[in-house]
């Protein structure tokens, strides 16, 4: 029993171990790496990827994929900037509408996938182009957001002493992580998502609401992308139609490194969290090593991804042989 359990949780342990080794190794090699500031920056820089990757994890666990998140995020930043600066909307209302846009965009994709039985890859690929185009239509170039409320929330946060603050981005990231874990493992909706990824026909024969759940999963992921966009405008002070290009692939990579199986039915929100931190740590190490070619970031991510996929395959083969 304990062996079986450990083999099921093995990918998660492996992910945690890799993060630990990366961090300890870097801390040993570079002075000042092992500091609260580095950790804090790690959370700050990766907050929007983290939120988006958690949404992506829901979609992948349900047996789907969402390629549109990078574009939806970009579109959300421009939409938000336009609403606040161009139309003078109050900030909270503009944010709510932006979140609603993300959820509606994702939900519409989910509805098409469900109603017409079209592969999610194709529908969200179309979504990727659509949302990116929409972003450029709203504004062809970056829009600065100069607003009293914005500078205010950008500076606020939990003071940690030593002049450090746990700012909005990381707070939202951690809160979303907690909510994602609670929903995935503790609610009927979350378990139905896993059921859907395990076997759609079985889930339907068990009388579970398959269609509703699938649409909700994509809406959730779209809302996550919009939330990621909002966080990026707070951190960077602007909306930009070119932001988040290729981000969908980073989100998928983070989920897979975290132990989520691309064919659905298996995955952990915590794993995705760890995966995001691993990608961030590699980036930080490269920043420390000023002379290193940034190409190593991609190579390291690619190597890790491959390693984890092979590990998953190995576990699957072993499970079959038992």
């Amino acid at each position, binding site marked *: 029993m304990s062996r*079986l359990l450990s083999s099921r949780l093995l990918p998660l342990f492996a992910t945690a171990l890799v993060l630990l080794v990366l961090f300890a190794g870097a801390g040993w090699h570079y002075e000042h790496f092992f500091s609260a500031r580095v950790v804090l920056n790690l959370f700050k820089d990766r907050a929007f990827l983290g939120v988006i990757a958690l949404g992506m994890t829901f979609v992948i666990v349900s047996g789907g994929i969402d390629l549109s998140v990078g574009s939806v995020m970009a579109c959300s930043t421009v939409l938000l900037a336009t609403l606040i600066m161009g139309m003078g909307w109050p900030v909270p209302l503009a944010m709510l509408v932006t979140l609603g846009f993300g959820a509606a965009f994702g939900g519409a994709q989910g509805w098409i996938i469900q109603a017409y039985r079209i592969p999610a890859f194709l529908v969200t690929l179309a979504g990727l182009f659509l949302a990116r185009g929409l972003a450029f239509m709203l504004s062809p170039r970056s829009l600065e957001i100069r607003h009293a409320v914005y500078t205010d929330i950008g500076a606020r946060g939990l003071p940690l002493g030593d002049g450090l603050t746990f700012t909005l981005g990381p707070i939202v990231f951690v809160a979303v992580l907690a909510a994602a874990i609670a929903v995935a493992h503790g609610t*009927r909706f979350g*378990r*139905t998502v896993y*059921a859907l*990824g395990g076997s759609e026909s079985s889930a339907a024969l*068990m009388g579970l609401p398959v269609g509703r759940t699938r649409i909700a999963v994509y809406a959730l992921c779209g809302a996550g992308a919009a939330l990621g966009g909002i966080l990026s405008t707070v951190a960077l002070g602007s909306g930009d139609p070119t932001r988040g290009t290729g981000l969908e692939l980073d989100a998928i990579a983070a989920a897979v490194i975290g132990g989520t199986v691309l064919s659905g039915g*298996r995955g952990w929100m915590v794993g995705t969290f760890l995966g995001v931190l691993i990608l961030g740590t590699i980036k930080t190490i490269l920043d420390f090593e000023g002379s290193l070619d940034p190409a190593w970031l991609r190579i390291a991510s690619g190597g890790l991804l491959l390693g984890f996929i092979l590990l998953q395959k190995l576990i699957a083969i072993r499970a079959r042989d038992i």
Partner: protein
Amino acid sequence: MSCLLQLRGIEKRFGSFAALRGVSLELRAGEIHALMGENGAGKSTLIKVITGVHQATGGSMEMAGRAHRPRRPQQAESAGISTVYQEVNLLPNLSIAENIMMGRQPMWGPFIRPVEGRRRARAALARLGLEVDVARPLGACAVALQQMAAIARALDQEARVLILDEPTSSLDAREVAELFAVLRRLRDQGMGILFVSHFLDQVYALSDRITVLRDGGGVGTWDVAELPRLDLVGHMIGKPVAARAAESARNEFRGRAAAGFFQVEQLERRGVAGPFAFGVEAGGATGLAGLLGSGRSELARMLFGIDPATSGKVRVDGREVALHSPRAAMAAGLAFCSEDRKVEGIVPSLSVRENIILALQASRGPLRRLPECEQAALAEKFIQALNIKTRGPETPMGTLSGGNQQKCLLARWMAVQPRLLILDEPTRGIDIGAKGEIEALCAELRRAGLAILFISGELDEVVRNCNQVVVLRDRRQAAVLEGGAISLQRIMETVAAA
């Protein structure tokens, strides 16, 4: 006894095809009711109409006195009808407890109470006399336990009607006995059980009444005691059972396997199975007999190059051939009908014609495409010769019944005209009439000089069809029986020998 579920004149059409033509059935509380019929008679469709997967196009249903017209499986479940489908329809990635409780988890506000859920799952399994760790993932459990979990799920919903679609096809004898004990207990508690099976012994051992379907229509309902087996089979196929062509073929055959064209010498896959040594004569049928897990399928996969041997030789016509891949095996004149026709055999979305010509096309290579008219002629020929029940050669394979899919697979391999045809469990999950037809077909093929390697878990089938039997025990060859030495008794003694 009170009537629980009443069906009156149920009709179901798919386009212009009538799958059900006015079926009536009455299921009483506290009875086990067997639903019998050949493949394609409409049993599965009828069940899906009762459970709301399909909607009837005519007729009416009543459940416990109230009109029953479910549009979704959920509605049938809440009306008190639970179903255990032929292929266990549960979620391998979740725990046993979650599979039992899914959709009805005890809640605390918006959150699930996992501890309470596991307790209720354990209680449901306890009613079946089972005590297992319900936190285990279902996919890691034996099929029998998965089936029990499906029944436990039904029990937890307080179902009053339980439908079992071929629940025993993947269970061994002990597991079947356990399942039957559970079903009898449930019946005595007043549940109505509708039971579909191909095994006559099981039907007679378990059920109280039998309803027979044929070609989408109801033939009738009888008390078990008033329906002799031969009459039942007659009702099912609508004609007397096909003559035992297989037996006569066996008696006619006088070849000597030891001098056969196909020689297996000390073939072994390390750590998996072997060594094996035997010969196959043209026109002969070699049976592989042994218990489940004795290495039968492993040997077949070795011969066809799916899991190639690590040592030993295979000679065809005295020449050594390396069977390192299915392509090499096909080139050497072998063909393989897999045991798992759902996963490894048929391509459900392709048409019957495309499925039949698949292997032939593969052996010709992608550039020499088989002309359209030749394909059509070939498909037509096999549909006629094998009596495949389909709406036409262009019907998607997935819509055919199990026995007819099996016949298409046979056709596929017959089309390449192999010299040695490996049949792994060719009659599993198909009914008596189709079984007889497939056996007769094999006999005919052998008369034309084809050799057959026949793998079956049903020993009497092996005895009936084969002129040579390789007996396997613990993944090794235990003995080779020939001609008159073949008998059920001898095989069982060899299998059981210490």
